């Protein structure tokens, strides 16, 4: 559950900016296409060490973005198509690489990649001098979350400006590409770490659903970020508890709860605006 909360917070902070940039699908694409990066890192280092895998993933995250932009510019296909091409291609590449390099007999499990198994992450405990210090996924995701939070807090101005008005940022001489790549690299890294723990579906869910719910009900960027974290907490905690009582998959339940929260927010908003209109009418 803690894993889900950490991953979710990280995802929803980053996802907020993806939504504002209207490039949520890029997050989706990245979360799938980092797979070859993971596999490559694994083949070369022969272990599930965090650092090479992170680097591999970050590289492929950036490659994917560049590939998408390249396709769009050179072949004039629409953005959606360019994204679809890139991520299915990279994901398939990753799956083939797994099969070829290992004969299907490794630690990287294809089902795990898609759906993850958050319930088993607690089995992977790390002990230092015999003391339990945390599960591996918590220990890897916590620093990343810290970096994401620092990035968002200190980079707020840059993120706000480049997300709202890229041309103006460029006109001020700000390196817009650096900001874009920094954001997408963090998305890749988060996606990769979340892969084993929660699977690609939950990553995309966290990237989009809580920020979208928050976007519906606020007009202020900082509030939007806070609210999306709140939505994440509610879905992660609620989803886990529900899954345990109903004995179903945790990832699936978390996404479902997030989705239900989104629908509730949305209908709440519709009712609010309607009743405001009625108030206005009755005033007249």
């Amino acid at each position, binding site marked *: 559950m803690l894993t889900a909360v950490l991953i979710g917070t990280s995802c929803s902070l980053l996802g907020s900016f993806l939504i*504002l940039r*209207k490039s949520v699908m890029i997050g989706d694409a990245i979360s799938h296409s980092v797979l070859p990066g993971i596999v490559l890192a694994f083949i070369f280092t022969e272990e599930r060490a965090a650092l090479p895998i992170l680097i591999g993933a970050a590289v492929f995250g950036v490659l994917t973005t560049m590939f998408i932009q390249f396709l769009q510019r050179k072949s004039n296909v629409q953005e959606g198509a360019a994204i679809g091409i890139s991520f299915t291609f990279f994901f398939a590449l990753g799956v083939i690489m797994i099969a070829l390099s290992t004969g299907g007999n490794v630690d990287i499990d294809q089902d795990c990649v898609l759906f993850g198994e958050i319930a088993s992450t607690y089995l992977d405990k790390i002990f230092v001098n015999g003391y339990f210090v945390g599960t591996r996924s918590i220990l890897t995701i916590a620093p990343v979350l810290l970096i994401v939070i620092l990035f968002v807090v*200190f*980079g707020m*101005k*840059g993120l*706000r*400006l480049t*997300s*709202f*008005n890229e*041309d*103006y*940022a*460029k*006109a*001020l*001489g*700000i*390196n817009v590409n650096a900001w874009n790549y920094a954001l997408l690299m963090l998305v890749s890294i988060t996606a990769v770490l979340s892969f084993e723990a929660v699977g690609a579906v939950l990553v995309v869910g966290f990237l989009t659903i809580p920020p979208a719910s928050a*976007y519906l009900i*606020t*007009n*202020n*960027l900082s*509030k*939007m970020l806070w609210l999306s974290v709140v939505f994440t907490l509610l879905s992660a905690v609620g989803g886990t508890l529900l899954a345990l009582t109903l004995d179903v998959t945790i990832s699936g339940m978390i996404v479902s709860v997030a989705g239900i929260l989104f629908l509730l927010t949305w209908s709440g908003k519709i009712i609010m605006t309607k009743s405001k209109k009625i108030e206005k009418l009755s005033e007249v």
Partner: protein
Amino acid sequence: MISLEAHNLTVAYDKVPVLWDIDFELPTGKIIGIIGPNGSGKTTLLKTIMGLIKPASGYVKVFEQDLDEVRQRVAYVPQRESVDWDFPASVQDVVEMGRYRKNSLFRRLTQTDKEIVANAIEKVKLTAFKDRQISQLSGGQQQRVFIARALAQGADIFFMDEPFVGVDATTETAILDLLTTMRDEGKTVVIVHHDLQTVSGYFDHLVLLNTRVIACGPTAEVLTQENLSNAYGGQLTLLSKIQSIIKEKEFPIREKGFEKR
């Protein structure tokens, strides 16, 4: 003094030239119009000047220097439709962006910055709306937010893309008054504009554009029937419109010339 110069500038999208061998110089302390028909490359010219598009050949200089060296002194007001007004930001948030600087992006805004921002908002008469979310503004108010942001930047030259589109007559006059004040303080204002009817009343200086520079100079010299028909082509309806415009403009222009003497 020259505020802006372009030399041998050629810009192409997918190898189709949109601007061809552009060459002109603009004076300082004037309100300058860039006019031309739809698709004549006005927006492209502005974006090239701001360094958003790389030219295929040629170069631009602002205050006789490369753009990178004078960026602080150059403000850009993009077309209003170029951004998403549903973005969660208030008037204040957007105008503050005018104080963002490349090398202090990670620092908080100072008290001076805040005062400059409040001042800019006051100048465009939006103080009452400063905490309003930008989607809840009218088109004219949104345009003024963009102008306030440029003012907050404290620039000496302003490039504005169609600032009068979707703006009512009152706001248009208000904006024009503001631009006139700025000019009188020695600022240079370059505006992309498409309404031929108002050209002679608004601008001191004109660049008439249609892929090439058709004419460039003081408004009275540029607004000739020959130049306009060169820029706008030979369509009869347009030509007759142009003739009426030229008749209309004779009076105000004579008046302006009179003032100078």
